[in-house]
């Protein structure tokens, strides 16, 4: 077992643990901070899976920008005080847990049945280097094959920003 394997196991375990902590904790601020930890673990896993660009993006966009936005919202709404009613009644809790366990069982059964992708041969372009040339390879696919999708996402982000500004500027009725 090499260093990468140990690192991968530790990151996978802590990603799972912090995901559970997000749901279990009753304090909204703690949930947001546990989620930042979860995102950082996933960024490490991305890097180990030969996607260093996505690891960096995950840290900058998700753990940085998005979670700062979340924490701002938590502070504006003063959610820390609402801990007593954070978790629903126990009967619903049980139902939701059973439902989630069922979905997980279906997913894992599907994975096991298909041999976890053993039957899948590596079909990609061997010319695309997943190692050090990762950024160049992603950029080539993104700006050549997915150029339209990339531009559309840009327009979508602009639309979202304009929508947020309109909503924030709106005068409160009544």
């Amino acid at each position: 077992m090499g260093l990468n394997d140990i690192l991968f196991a530790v990151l996978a375990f802590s990603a799972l643990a912090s995901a559970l902590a997000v749901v279990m904790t009753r304090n909204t601020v703690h949930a947001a901070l546990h989620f930042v930890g979860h995102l950082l673990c996933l960024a490490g896993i991305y890097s180990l899976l030969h996607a260093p660009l996505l690891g960096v993006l995950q840290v900058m966009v998700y753990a940085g920008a998005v979670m700062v936005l979340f924490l701002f919202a938590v502070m504006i709404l003063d959610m820390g005080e609402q801990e007593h009613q954070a978790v629903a009644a126990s009967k619903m809790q049980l139902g939701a847990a059973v439902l989630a366990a069922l979905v997980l069982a279906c997913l894992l059964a599907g994975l096991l049945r298909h041999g976890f992708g053993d039957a899948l041969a590596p079909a990609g372009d061997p010319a695309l280097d997943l190692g050090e040339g990762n950024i160049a390879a992603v950029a080539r696919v993104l700006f050549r094959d997915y150029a339209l999708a990339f531009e559309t996402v840009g327009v979508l982000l602009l639309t979202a920003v304009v929508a947020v500004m309109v909503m924030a500027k709106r005068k409160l009725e009544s």
Partner: protein
Amino acid sequence: MPTLEISLALAGAVFCIGASGVLLRRDPLVMFICIEMMFNAANLAFVALSDRFKSVQGQTLVFLVIAVAAAEVAVGLSIIIAIFRTEKDVNVDHLSELKG
């Protein structure tokens, strides 16, 4: 070490934890965080299979998903804040304004 298997199982588990969080919690911000968690589980599956297939298509899609998720967070949080500026209530069970 079978990284693909572990990654896919982890993605499934995280997706289900996020789904149960959306069902269990009544705090809209935590529900929103759990939705983001489900996005991330899908992203992890994309990256793991991209690594398996030696193709960067999956990573490109993850790039686009992250951008869409950022836009979704901006709009969603502003809606939540707009609702709670008027309602002063943070339990989603008490919000029935949008019922058809």
